[in-house]
């Protein structure tokens, strides 16, 4: 068992479809300034830095961490870059967590970002397919995500209406998020009649494409009090992988997510997730994913997701609110999103959410994902 690790400062940019006033490095700087100010620290207090960004193809800069180091004043500090598709920001935080838990460093800054306005997103993502086997037919991540949803639709009841309810809920929650850039409420009917992009996925099931950055300061227990009286303690954190094309792969449940949840829940003492979590943040690149995550995370039984969202339990005021920040529907700077989910969960248990604060939130769940469904992460944060 390593040392306790807490989140003591957070910051994110006001996300936008396109920021023409700042470079990638300038975008990062904004988030870092906010996180350091929130933690009442300067770069001099930071022992090491983790830079987390999406694939180089997103913005055509190889080794962007060398720019970022200059831009945040991390000259001559220990610094590594971590990248893991959609789970990049979360994986970066995990890298920082390990450095502190192990005793190597006391305070680590993790910064995650993507400036998606600069490149060809779906084509870049398509390169995650085997060049011999499937890339000819690749359709970014949307076509495959839609196909998996179609496979779950009949046996698990993940209907188009149920996914539309996720879109309605998250877009409504995003209205209260000062950092979201898509703020427009929609109805189930509007989602259902929006353009079919990769049916069953429709336009309003899809998040925006965003420029944005996020940063978090993680600290060991002894130094945490210099930043805050109420850190968000990470009581469990893991990121699991499955094989790319294994035999008889389960299409109904995310096996790496279920495995990650089981391990992390055990570490954090979670035996009844629906009752014990006060608030949940999931990375739902498309609305259909959120339904699947409810089941893989044990918030309901397999096949119970449509009923769960319809009951209002996962909406603001419900007993297990999911994505009070609006999730990806409010902003989706992919490399940063895993870290943003962690920030939104952490600020809930720190009692300082800038979105809809759950009164007295003590225990929060954050989920992330990368790859084409085969990398999944879970973290539990407690006051």
């Amino acid at each position: 068992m390593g040392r306790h690790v807490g989140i003591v400062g957070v910051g994110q940019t006001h996300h936008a479809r396109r920021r023409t006033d700042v470079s990638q490095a300038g975008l990062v700087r904004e988030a870092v300034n906010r996180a350091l100010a929130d933690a009442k620290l300067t770069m001099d207090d930071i022992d090491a830095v983790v830079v987390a960004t999406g694939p180089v193809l997103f913005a055509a800069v190889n080794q962007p961490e060398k720019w970022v180091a200059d831009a945040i004043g991390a000259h001559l500090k220990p610094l590594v870059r971590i990248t893991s598709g959609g789970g990049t920001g979360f994986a970066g935080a995990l890298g920082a967590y390990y450095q502190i838990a192990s005793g190597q460093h006391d305070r680590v800054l993790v910064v995650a970002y993507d400036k998606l306005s600069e490149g060809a997103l779906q084509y870049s993502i398509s390169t995650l397919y085997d060049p011999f086997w499937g890339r000819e037919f690749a359709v970014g991540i949307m076509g495959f995500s839609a196909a998996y949803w179609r496979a779950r639709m009949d046996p698990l009841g993940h209907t188009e209406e149920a996914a539309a309810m996720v879109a309605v809920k998250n877009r409504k929650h995003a209205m209260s998020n000062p950092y979201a850039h898509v703020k427009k409420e929609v109805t189930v009917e509007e989602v259902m009649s929006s353009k079919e992009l990769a049916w069953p996925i429709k336009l309003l099931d899809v998040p925006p494409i965003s420029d944005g950055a996020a940063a978090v300061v993680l600290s060991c227990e002894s130094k945490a009090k210099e930043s805050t009286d109420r850190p968000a303690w990470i009581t469990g954190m893991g990121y699991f992988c499955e094989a790319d094309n294994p035999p008889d792969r389960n299409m109904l449940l995310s096996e790496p997510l279920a495995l990650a949840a089981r391990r992390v829940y055990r570490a954090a003492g979670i035996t009844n997730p629906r009752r014990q979590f006060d608030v949940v943040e999931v990375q739902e690149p498309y609305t259909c994913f959120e339904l699947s995550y409810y089941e893989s995370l044990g918030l309901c039984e397999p096949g119970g997701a449509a009923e769960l969202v319809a009951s209002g339990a996962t909406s603001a005021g419900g007993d297990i609110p999911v994505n009070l920040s609006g999730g990806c529907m409010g902003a989706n700077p992919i490399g940063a999103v895993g870290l943003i989910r962690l920030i939104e969960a952490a600020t809930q248990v720190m009692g300082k959410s800038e979105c809809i604060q759950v009164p007295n939130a003590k225990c929060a769940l954050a989920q992330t994902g990368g790859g084409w469904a085969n990398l999944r992460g879970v973290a539990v944060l407690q006051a």
Partner: protein
Amino acid sequence: MLARPDTYAIDMEPLKSSLAMPYTLTPGRAAGAFLAEVANRRIVGSKFKNSGKVTVPAQDFCPISGDAEFDLIEAPATGTLTAFTETQFGLIGLVRIDGSDVDFPHQILGARYDDLNIGDRVEAVWSDEPVETSILNIAGFKLSPNAPVGQIKPLENPAEQVEVVKYAIDLKYEHAFGPYYGRMFDEIKNNRRIMGVRVPDGSESAYLPPRETCDITHKQTGTWVEVAHTGTVRAMSIINFEFVGQKKKPPYVYAEIKLDGASTRLIHNVYLPDFTMEKAKAMVKPGTRVRAVWSDKRTGSMDDISHFEIIDQ
């Protein structure tokens, strides 16, 4: 241990592929100002307020202190050579503009390698033709032994910063097939057979694509086995949007298909005559039976299967 004869590599040319993508890059305030002014034959740098350091070309952040507060300055067109090398594209040098604390790379023009020495005085050579949003408005630097040491000065009447720089990449790759993919694509090309390898422990079901070890047990896979040209749709979606790099004009059906005899899925398209969205939703579902239709072309790739068609039940 000797390799089994059926896994000998087949001599195939590597798969040629390319990634060509457009970009719209954002230089930010300082580099944006540099790019705007270099078109006017002025070289812009940043002077950082706390550290006092000067960077030419201009940067948003002091590389030493991380200082973000700066004034834009106009730098002289003269400097000193701090490093150089000869490449197939000519001489490349690092130039420290007079008054700057950092170096930057550019071409050295009108000289031979043997003419160059560290510390030589150099002077910017301006491009005859304007180059849109590019540092190549400075064509390069030439030796200028008697160039006086210039001074930086405040930048007056700066041009509006460049906010977007167009860019493109066009990367060429050659992927090696290896023995397993090599045999599979050779069979597809020459024999129109779809070959997998048996899952370990005597199973009759096959891995497709074939591979050396089982993903789950890490045991060596078994012997080669042909799988059927028919199979079952396990997952599908209807692609109805356009994106850069798309190979096929939408709308079309994307499907993950488990061929009879295989334990894994392949990705392909299901063709419907007289396509409509409603027809595709109704006719292609998890469980729908499909058959591979071979292309007239023999390329040794998955494109040798033109598409899958629905088997009438």
